[in-house]
């Protein structure tokens, strides 16, 4: 499970957004548990996941808020956008409507988060190539035009799931180093927490195994 609670230097807050059924909770589960949930119940409001990763020698804890994609929960989940350092915007490559709604999700994200928030576009279910409904080039162009990072991933096979979360953290960390992300701002979604030896539960059981990137 998660590593010792005091054995990290930063805490980054992530939100995962996107239409219902695109695989947000499966992506989170694949990232935190290294498993695929075949039959995942729909998310009610917000669910929560954590994991500790390492970026440039720094241990970073990710606090990931997985939001419900149903339209009826949208007003409720908007309250959790504030203060997110990273936003993972997910669509389903086999369902065109989920891609068409990205503009609406992006507008919400821009309006409700800090300008320094890193937004990562994920096209999930890339293992279902036969049912593809959105081309990589089209989505890549959309990401480039809006200043987003982009990758196609598969929560089932684990392809690029690790990469999406890690690249977001790297970019956030880079913003901190460049001074563009103000650590002193309480709503930046980042907590700077120097390690404190002598505390209990110092064991670091962070999983260092990384999935091979097939793409």
């Amino acid at each position: 499970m998660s590593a010792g609670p005091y054995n990290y230097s930063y805490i980054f807050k992530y939100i995962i957004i996107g239409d219902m059924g695109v695989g947000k909770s499966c992506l989170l589960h694949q990232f935190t548990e290294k498993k695929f949930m075949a039959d995942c119940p729909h998310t009610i409001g917000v669910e929560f996941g954590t994991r500790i990763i390492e970026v440039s020698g720094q241990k970073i804890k990710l606090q990931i808020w997985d939001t419900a994609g149903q339209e009826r929960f949208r007003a409720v989940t908007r309250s959790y956008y504030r203060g997110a350092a990273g936003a993972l915007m997910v669509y389903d490559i086999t369902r065109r409507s989920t891609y068409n709604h990205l503009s609406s999700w992006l507008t919400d994200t821009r309006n409700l988060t800090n300008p320094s928030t890193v937004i990562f576009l994920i096209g999930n279910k890339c293992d279902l190539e036969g049912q593809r409904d959105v081309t990589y080039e089209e989505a890549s162009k959309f990401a480039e035009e809006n200043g987003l990072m982009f990758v196609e991933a598969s929560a089932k096979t684990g392809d690029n799931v690790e990469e999406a979360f890690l690249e977001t953290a790297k970019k956030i960390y880079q913003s901190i180093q460049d001074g563009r992300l103000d650590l002193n701002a309480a709503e930046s979604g980042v907590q700077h927490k120097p390690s404190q030896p002598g505390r209990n539960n110092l064991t670091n059981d962070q999983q260092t195994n990384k999935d091979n990137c097939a793409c």
Partner: protein
Amino acid sequence: MLQFWKKSGHNDKNCYQSASSKALKVGNCSNSSSFDSVKSCPLQSFDDEGLFDIDEFESTKERSKLSKTLQEVLSDKAALGYFVQYMESRNAARYILCWLDIDSFKSDIFQCKERKTPNISPMPNFKGDHDSLSVSTDCDSYDTNSLYDFSTATISDSRVTQSSLEVNGFCDRDLSDTSPKMKSLTETLSVDDRKGGQIFVENALMIFKKYIAQEATHNVKCSEAARNEIIESVCDIDKVLVGNCFNKVQNYVYEIMEKEYFDAFLGSDYFCKHQIDVLTSGNVALDDLLYNETALFYFMEFLEQENSRSLLEFWIAATNLQQQLHDQKEFFDPIEAQNDAVVLYDKYFSLQAHCPLGFSDRIRFEVEQNICGENGLVLDCFNLPLKIVEQVLERNYLKTFLASQLFYKYLSELINTVQSNGYSMNIENNKPSPSDCSSERSFSTNSTFLALEINHNSAKKSRDKCTDMSIDTKQLCDPDSLWKRKRNHRLSCGRVTALGKFETDLEPEPDKNGFKLKNVVKKFVSLDEDKKREEMAWQVAEMIVKDITSVTLNQEKPRNS
């Protein structure tokens, strides 16, 4: 119904399917999931604390003192102070001041009405007098607001005077047109009523002159129609006493503040200072953390460290569900809502739960009844477990969190936000480098060494050279020659050839030349050594000098013979 639920899980599954037209693959979800399994034993002991009596859902969402709407800021004196400062920093104080003056004006009228209602008595024989409306009377029974006193000071302005004349013109015209009405009106007013009304008319005029008139010092720039309407209202004592003549302007400035300034205020240092005040007041409640997104972020991290994350996770999910159901009262889909509730039940309450919270069977039965009861889904089906979780969070974790490093970190970040903006870098000029001082030191050291050298050299010469008394006398008489000779010796220090010796010194005394050169070399080398080494060097030099002297004397004897 309860006995039915006590049967096997297969029956549970059937019931779910019958309750919903959609097929819920509950079993598959249970088998394929392996979430955190965290039990919270204290939940068992909360059954009999009277929480069963809580059956009404609080329809209004609970608020955090850390999150404010504009209406809440206007009702909170502490937050209002920061908001006024913020509006001043944006050169928009006129809006908030206008709103406050109107609010004070209305509250004064309301209080006056309450006191005056039993005292109204008609005086049939009293006649109306036009001049009474323009007479300024002091009424001791009413305290004027300090803002009104400030308004009075501005009456001396010429522009305000012109505006006053204009308003008086309207008053005269209106009164002349409705003189018959004035008689009937005044017949029903008592002396006290007239005086009180006069005060309010004056106050209304002050607000008008300050904020609404075209030449107002703090013009809020409302529309022409609203201004004209107010002009007619403030000329009519009846309309003034109703107290709503400024409602349109008040709503107008409220909307401006809410649309153009309030969101920026929430992100400003002033609101940050208010949050710091709340967090350091010692009265932080659980709702302050649960209903503020930033505080919730830190509180969630704290519960994660305490291995009680599931409690808050359930609270968030159930609260969101109930909030969503109440938000869409008219468009409420019973089947969809029931499916949502079943998802949460399966995750936190059922016997195969992925994240069992440890509730007792009694609570679980009640939740089951609320979800799949005879009357269908109850909107606040999770109300009882929510109350229990809130009590557990408040009793077991709130105080610990407020004393934790995470809370201190949260507070210090808020403080740093305020300080970092007001911080100005003061670069102090470095002190001048000590090169000058060291130069002086080296110079003084050099001078001291030179003085020592001169004295020692003179002493040696006087002792060793008895036959050369004439030369010593010359050197003592002429100090400049001493300096010059030593400098020459040093300059020719690198050359030890016979030609060099002859060139720089007197021809009749070549032996002395060699003697001086060696002596100078020894002294020159000792420049770079410590005092202790200098003493050693002096001793060595004396020995060498003696040897050279003895050799020189021996060589001179054969020449003489």
